[in-house]
């Protein structure tokens, strides 16, 4: 503190940086590394499903225990260590200060600590593969008795139980949630207190609104999960019996506490990506965003409904049928605000001068794929259908049709769109198009046929169907093989992206400030934005989506342009 004139060292500039852009980039890189780990796990167990009993290239033989652990940790990684850091932390850290015209987050040091706690949580998760007994394999939802069953022992050996796959997974998730909470508080305080002059509530870009709504949903729902997670940890290490019916506990309690967080969590993941669409669609259709305020009200309505739907995951777990009807209705109701948001997006495209650039392709691909996920969700939301389809590949295909476009299409749309801003360089667009089309085709190849496998009765947690003649019959085994081949194709396709990024980063900076001719404040800053973001700081005079104004000379009017 006394020596303020020192030059930033390598460590303080790139590693323990408090700059929101560096932290955003760190989160993104960490998320992409974890996506690689999660993808590798998916490759191994998909290979096993298509060719059971064969040795897997780059892995070897996969036993049933390891299969379960791989499926479990794949789900955990993709939700908590890819979706959350990339959609919430990377976008939020990078974009919020730039888009509201601020120099940094409200609490830069807390922000830095948030990333490093997240990094530790990822290490704890990976470490859980290497403890005796291996990583936890009872499904990413961690239902007892699987998650407490191995240790339903009134006097467990504390340290043995603490260094088990189950306990380490609980600890890793707890640390991750702490990191996200620190980030979320930072988002809210920054957005409320650090806006540029003139940036009133109804001029804030949708993505900033949505990131903040996501942070509030997260903060509302995470407490009960942490409570439940500590009780689960105590069942493991202290021998309490919270989830053990023999000792007066109840395993259903965990399901309620978990899904009270778990279901709102999908909207925490969805809202940032929808925000990305709201930024990209007007820019590439040269039209103002349709129904700006209505979109925000719809998102607030969905945030409210999101905490009233959790038990639709428990229709077969033995809940009261009257309660099941209530949750069915809530679940189907929540599709209304999201349908409204998607309708507003399509109305934005309607009659626009569409520029089919790479970010726009990802955005439109997102809408198309998410529709399939959303519509199959309507079926599952009805408890009568869910009782039939529960825990089958129909459910697996459904949530991959929602989460894959959400996490990956949303991320790639954002990445291709903002890459010129955070590097000062442009990505190769024909490689981008190859990347998009191959990802789009292979993704459908993996999951579309699995809907049929699910309806035929294939259960999602079986590693080898060959001993179940009724559900391993043709064509379903062929479908499994097609899905696996497409999954391998999907993963290989991502190397086009990596190659494109590496190649583009080695180019000379073009330094173009506003390549897409967009109106929001981040495009006012230099590319890449310097430490402190703006010089001088912008003043805001208008809303975020002033495209093709009738009396303007060009078809975009940035937010810092004074009104005539």
């Amino acid at each position: 503190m006394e020596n303020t004139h020192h030059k930033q060292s390598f460590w303080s500039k790139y590693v323990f940086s408090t700059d929101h852009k560096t932290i955003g980039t760190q989160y993104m890189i960490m998320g992409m590394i974890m996506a690689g780990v999660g993808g590798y796990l998916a490759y191994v167990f998909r290979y096993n499903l298509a060719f059971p009993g064969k040795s897997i290239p780059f892995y070897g033989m996969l036993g049933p225990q390891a299969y379960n652990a791989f499926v479990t940790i794949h789900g955990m990684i993709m939700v908590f260590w890819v979706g959350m850091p990339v959609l919430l932390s990377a976008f939020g850290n990078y974009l919020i200060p730039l888009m509201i015209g601020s120099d940094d987050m409200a609490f830069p040091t807390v922000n830095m600590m948030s990333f490093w706690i997240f990094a530790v949580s990822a290490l704890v998760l990976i470490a859980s593969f290497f403890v005796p007994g291996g990583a936890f394999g009872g499904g990413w939802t961690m239902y007892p008795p699987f998650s407490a069953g191995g240790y339903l022992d009134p006097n467990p050996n504390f340290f043995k139980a603490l260094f088990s796959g189950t306990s380490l997974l609980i600890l890793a998730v707890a640390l991750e949630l702490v990191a996200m909470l620190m980030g979320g508080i930072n988002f809210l305080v920054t957005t409320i207190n650090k806006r540029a002059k003139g940036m009133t509530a109804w001029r804030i870009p949708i993505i900033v609104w949505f990131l903040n709504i996501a942070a509030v949903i997260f903060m509302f729902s995470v407490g009960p999960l942490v409570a439940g997670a500590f009780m689960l940890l105590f069942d493991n290490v202290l021998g309490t019996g919270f989830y053990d019916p023999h000792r007066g506990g109840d395993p259903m309690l965990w399901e309620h506490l978990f899904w009270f967080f778990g279901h709102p969590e999908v909207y925490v993941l969805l809202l940032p990506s929808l925000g990305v669409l709201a930024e990209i669609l007007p820019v590439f259709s040269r039209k103002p965003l349709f129904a700006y305020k209505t979109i925000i009200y719809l998102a607030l309505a969905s945030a409210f409904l999101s905490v009233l739907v959790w038990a639709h995951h428990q229709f077969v777990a033995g809940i009261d049928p009257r309660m099941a009807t209530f949750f069915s209705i809530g679940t189907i109701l929540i599709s209304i605000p999201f349908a409204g948001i998607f309708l507003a997006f399509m109305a934005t495209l309607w009659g626009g001068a569409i520029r089919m650039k790479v970010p726009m392709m990802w955005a439109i691909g997102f809408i198309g794929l998410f529709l399939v996920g959303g519509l199959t969700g309507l079926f599952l939301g009805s408890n009568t259908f869910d009782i039939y389809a529960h825990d089958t590949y129909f459910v697996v295909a459904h949530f991959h049709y929602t989460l894959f476009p959400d996490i990956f299409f949303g991320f790639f749309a954002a990445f291709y769109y903002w890459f010129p801003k955070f590097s000062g360089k442009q990505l190769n667009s024909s490689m981008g198009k190859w990347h998009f089309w191959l990802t789009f085709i292979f993704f459908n190849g993996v999951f579309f046929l699995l809907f049929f496998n699910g309806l035929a009765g294939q259960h999602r947690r079986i590693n080898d169907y060959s001993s179940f003649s009724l559900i391993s019959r043709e064509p379903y085994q062929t479908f499994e093989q097609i899905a696996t081949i497409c999954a391998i194709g999907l993963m290989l396709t991502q190397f086009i992206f990596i190659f494109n990024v590496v190649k583009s980063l080695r180019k000379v900076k073009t330094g173009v400030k506003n390549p897409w001719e967009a109106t929001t404040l981040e495009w006012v800053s230099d590319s890449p934005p310097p430490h402190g973001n703006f010089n001088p700081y912008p003043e805001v005079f208008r809303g975020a989506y002033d495209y093709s104004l009738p009396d303007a000379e060009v078809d975009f009017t940035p937010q810092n342009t004074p009104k005539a």
Partner: protein
Amino acid sequence: MDATLTTSKPNISKAVPDGVLAMIFILFTEGMLFAGLISAYIVNRAGAMVWPPADQPRLPVEVTGINTLILISSAVVLYLFTRRVKNTMAIDAKSTNLLLVTILLGVTFVTVQGTEWARLIGYGLTTHSSIYGAFFYTLIGAHGLHVMVGLSILLYLYFAVKKAANFEIAKNKIAACILYWYFVVAIWPILYRLVYFN
């Protein structure tokens, strides 16, 4: 916490200071944590045949009742501290002493709780003796942990206030830190009523 802002930086008028706002969001999350614990407890108790289980020791209602009064009085003293610094717009020895009294009352609360825990464990109420014990130690332990965090925050505030010796410099810190203690005190009577009275 706030860096001095140069005129070129965005500096909108803040209705609520950063630290207070962050504390409100933290307490919102903490409130939901306790809501989760309390609802788990209520649901479990409602489903139990006999509550508390016949072979388990009873909880010390009277001692804890006095202890509750001690905790509440700590919040009253903390209120007197804030009223004094706001009225005088200054920080003097008398006001910092009020803060010290708050901390000492908090320490007393934790000490009494700790000795009661030791006695209960001696009587055979442990985390694995019954679900009754498990819930008791989890709920009351979660609160106790928050009291200790609250005490660390107040201790930090005590030294920060002494060092600043200036109301204008310290006022945002005071506003944020006292919120945490009020939360810790406010949640206790609810837990006392729910857990100790059956």
